[in-house]
């Protein structure tokens, strides 16, 4: 019963329930280096983000020794940054969580296994991200525990293109 979400009308209602927006874009070419903000990023289908450390074929990320198809692009909720400050008193910037795309109004935890549009690109969510101690080492902030279950979403890129700050995020029916 709990292996899948409802089909039919209930699923349609769930999918129509949100539309989000891209607030920040970040990438970095190598493990440990600071994430740099970008106004646009270029997603390549089946590969990753141009210039990012997890681009398949050019991998230089902290987890690159563990290949994963769904790490082509990663997303994070702006609402989590707000909650961290509100509930834990921790100020974490969108450049510090080390995911590529910070979105607002997108229920990332509901999207595993689903397809959705990120601007003109089409993504398929493969799994939830988990926090790692590595990020505490880099940021010097105790964020491992507060990020459990809201550490973002790993996706593969089905249809590439350019993603811009301000782009709409919406479900792919």
């Amino acid at each position: 019963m709990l292996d899948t979400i409802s089909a039919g009308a209930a699923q349609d209602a769930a999918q129509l329930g949100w539309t989000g927006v891209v607030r920040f874009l970040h990438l970095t070419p190598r493990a440990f280096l600071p994430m740099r903000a970008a106004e646009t990023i270029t997603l390549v289908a089946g590969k990753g983000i141009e210039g990012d450390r997890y681009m398949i074929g050019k991998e230089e990320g902290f987890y690159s020794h563990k290949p994963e198809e769904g790490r082509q692009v990663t997303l994070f909720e702006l609402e989590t940054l707000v909650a961290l400050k509100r509930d834990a008193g921790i100020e974490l910037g969108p450049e510090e969580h080390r995911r590529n795309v910070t979105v607002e109004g997108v229920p990332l935890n509901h999207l595993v296994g689903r397809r959705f549009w990120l601007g003109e690109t089409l993504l398929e969510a493969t799994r939830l991200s988990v926090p790692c101690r590595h990020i505490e080492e880099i940021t010097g902030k105790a964020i491992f525990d507060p990020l459990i279950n809201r550490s973002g979403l790993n996706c593969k890129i089905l249809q590439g293109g350019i993603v811009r700050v301000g782009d709409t995020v919406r479900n792919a029916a």
Partner: protein
Amino acid sequence: MSARPITTVKTVVTGIEEAGAGIKLFMLADPDRWELPPFKPGAHIDLHLPNGLVRTYSLCNEPADNTRYVIAVKREADGRGGSRALHDEIGIGDVIGVSLPRGGLEPEARIARYVFLAGGIGVTPFLSMARHLERTKQADFTLHLIVREEVPLATHLGALVEEGRIIVHRTSRTGRPDLAALVGEGGSETMVACCGPESMTHDFERVTAAWPAASVHIERFIAPPPVIDPDAKPFTLSLARSGAEIEVRAGQTMLAALQEGGIDIATSCCGGICGACKVGWIEGKPVHRDRILSPYERERYLMVCVAGSDAERLVLDL
């Protein structure tokens, strides 16, 4: 893709400068000149040299200069080999992995005056701090540089010496200065910091023993001591399949001990929630600190990234 995890920041040598007195400055940058991980004034990094040696050097540029790490290395002919390798074998374009920066001194608003005591090449972290304070005008500072005769990095320090911000004490002429007189009375708005040979830092600790701890800083070229649970005890891992015995130090994780022992363990979160490092255990009293194994699973498995042992010996199915 690499088969092993990336554990260092990749840098290339973009410049080497002779700085006199057997010292060379090495400029390290990202291959694409990307910003490097940030650091506090006076922080240090480990260099993982191509010959396998790991050596620690202070950064002597300031944090705002964020696309390079500059280190000053004095060639020690009778040293352990790190400085010789850098001076004799490293050239422009060579790739060197470095650690994330550690240590250094975060300038605090409450501090109006810094007194730095440096012994010889121990001046390097304070060069970073001096540059930072000069530019930001955040606080006043005096740097007492104690040398036998020759001033290291003379061309880089010259202007500050002329301005009176650096006071050079030559022990060959005037003997060892009285550190208590140099640090003065102190006060809540004064911070004193020292970097130099061990005898000097010992003396410094003695003369500042009565100062509030928050006003005293010693820059040491070692990793900060890990915070070890006072109840933590060392134990031995016996690996049932390979027959290997691996010692786990008090406060060390099993994961770190296994990796030191050359055992390849899959890891991901390193915090006991992802399950990547699940290993079977056969005999002993594991202390489970993960947040995912059920009571039933805990009778058979543990997570080596966080688990401990209540007995002196723990047998793993490895």
